[in-house]
């Protein structure tokens, strides 16, 4: 496939890896965080750690919307389907994520709830039109990449007056999560998570552009390189970060110029701004309450807001105590540090969210990590 195959060339990967090996200063250790789950997945799938010199450490960030959704929100989604009897439409990624008492959407479906897996939010609107006597709720999750389609569908539902359709909004924002990591005591004071630079998200940045990352490079003096999700993109970004660290610079560079511009997709951004507004705070698994990190539906579209249409019981769902997902999401621990990893917690029978999504660090370690040389 064009724009895919040429960025997966094995020979070129070895060449870039060789360039990295020559560029690194043997006396330094480089700690880079890939924020996005898409990068975590690419790093493991293509065996990138085996190509890197020993003194480059990749830290996996919290950029997987499935992994960071707290148990309480999953409980609410299950409540919508079971207690309120709605047809709940969800992206496939969410189906097996365990909520309280390890209940999941898939288990609720097996018990008789009408939960349907959809590829696109437009499928959810179609289901609403096909079932006018039922309430249909779309379980919206995702970062800036997935938010514009949800905004479009709310706009369309209003235009077409689809009265039995609403959205359970769980959209979250990348820049506020990066701020939280940089502000966390583990990074700032305790030095538990040394961070020398970030690989910036690929598809999130196609929407928001490269400009929002300028703040991190200026305020926290950390270099950011926005990279595509293909292996050569990731390797090239690592090389660019190494060069920045060596030169003592902290700027935003864009490796993914074929799809990311400084301002991003203006049409998508203004649509999102029309439909959504920031929540004062939103809970993230692993990060806790993060200020201004989540979106809710604006009052003028309140009729399409499932949280306004249905009364939801606040859930006190807590993570399994032995599960290290919260620390893994903050980069403090790796999946191999978790007692449950690969034994009690596997992709087939996950305990924590990082094992569910293919972009979660645990799932990536489980699926590909065993082939790693080191």
């Amino acid at each position, binding site marked *: *496939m*064009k*724009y*895919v195959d*040429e*960025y997966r060339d094995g020979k*070129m990967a070895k*060449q*870039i890896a*060789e*360039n990295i090996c*020559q560029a690194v200063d043997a006396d330094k250790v480089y700690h880079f965080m890939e924020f*996005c*789950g*898409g990068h975590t*997945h690419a790093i493991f799938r293509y065996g990138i750690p085996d190509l890197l010199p020993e003194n480059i450490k990749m830290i996996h960030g919290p*950029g*997987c*919307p*499935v992994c960071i959704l707290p148990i309480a929100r999953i409980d609410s989604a299950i409540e919508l389907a079971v207690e309120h009897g709605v047809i709940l439409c969800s*992206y496939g*990624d969410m189906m097996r994520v365990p909520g309280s008492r390890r209940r999941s959407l898939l288990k609720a479906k097996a018990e008789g709830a009408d939960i349907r897996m959809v*590829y*696109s*939010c*437009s*499928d959810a609107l179609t289901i609403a039109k096909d079932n006018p006597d039922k309430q249909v709720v779309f379980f919206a*999750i*995702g*970062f800036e*990449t*997935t938010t*514009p*389609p949800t905004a*479009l569908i709310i706009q369309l539902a209003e235009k077409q007056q689809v009265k039995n359709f609403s959205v359970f909004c769980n959209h979250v924002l990348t820049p506020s999560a990066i701020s939280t990591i940089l502000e966390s005591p583990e990074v700032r004071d305790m030095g538990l998570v040394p961070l020398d630079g970030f690989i910036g*998200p*690929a*598809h*999130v940045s*196609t*929407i928001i552009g490269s400009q929002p990352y300028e703040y991190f490079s200026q305020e926290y003096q950390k270099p950011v390189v926005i990279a595509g*999700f293909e292996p*050569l*993109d990731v390797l*090239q970004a690592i*090389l660019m970060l190494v060069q920045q660290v060596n030169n003592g610079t902290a700027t935003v560079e864009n*490796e*993914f*110029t*074929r*799809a*990311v511009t400084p301002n*991003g*997709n203006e*049409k*998508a951004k203004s*649509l999102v701004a029309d439909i959504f507004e920031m929540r004062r705070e939103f809970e993230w698994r692993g990060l806790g309450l993060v200020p201004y990190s989540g979106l809710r539906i604006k009052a003028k579209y309140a009729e399409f807001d499932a949280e306004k249409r249905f009364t939801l019981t606040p859930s006190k769902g807590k993570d399994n105590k032995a599960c290290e997902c919260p620390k893994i999401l903050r980069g403090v621990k790796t999946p191999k540090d978790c007692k449950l990893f690969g034994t009690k917690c596997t992709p087939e029978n996950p305990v924590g969210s990082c094992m569910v*999504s293919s*972009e979660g660090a645990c799932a990536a370690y489980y699926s590909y990590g065993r082939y790693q040389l080191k």
Partner: protein
Amino acid sequence: MCLAIPVKVEKILADDTAIVDIGGVKKEISVALIEDLAIGDYVIMHVGYALNKIDPEEAIKTLALFNEMGVLEQAIDDHKTHDHKVQE
């Protein structure tokens, strides 16, 4: 979750939709988020929506960037080999 793939626009339809080619498979997607779309453009598709156009010139530049360094390294290596041979 944020994974998306490059697809080629084959036909532009009414209501902001288009038929795209995904490695041989044809699919109707929404192009409501894209301005100035033309047949033959590549777009990044995510959950049935085109998010952005791919800039073909920038794509070539990035490939050239990988290559440039490679060619440079190769040139240095060649030079070294050459010097080595001369010394012999």
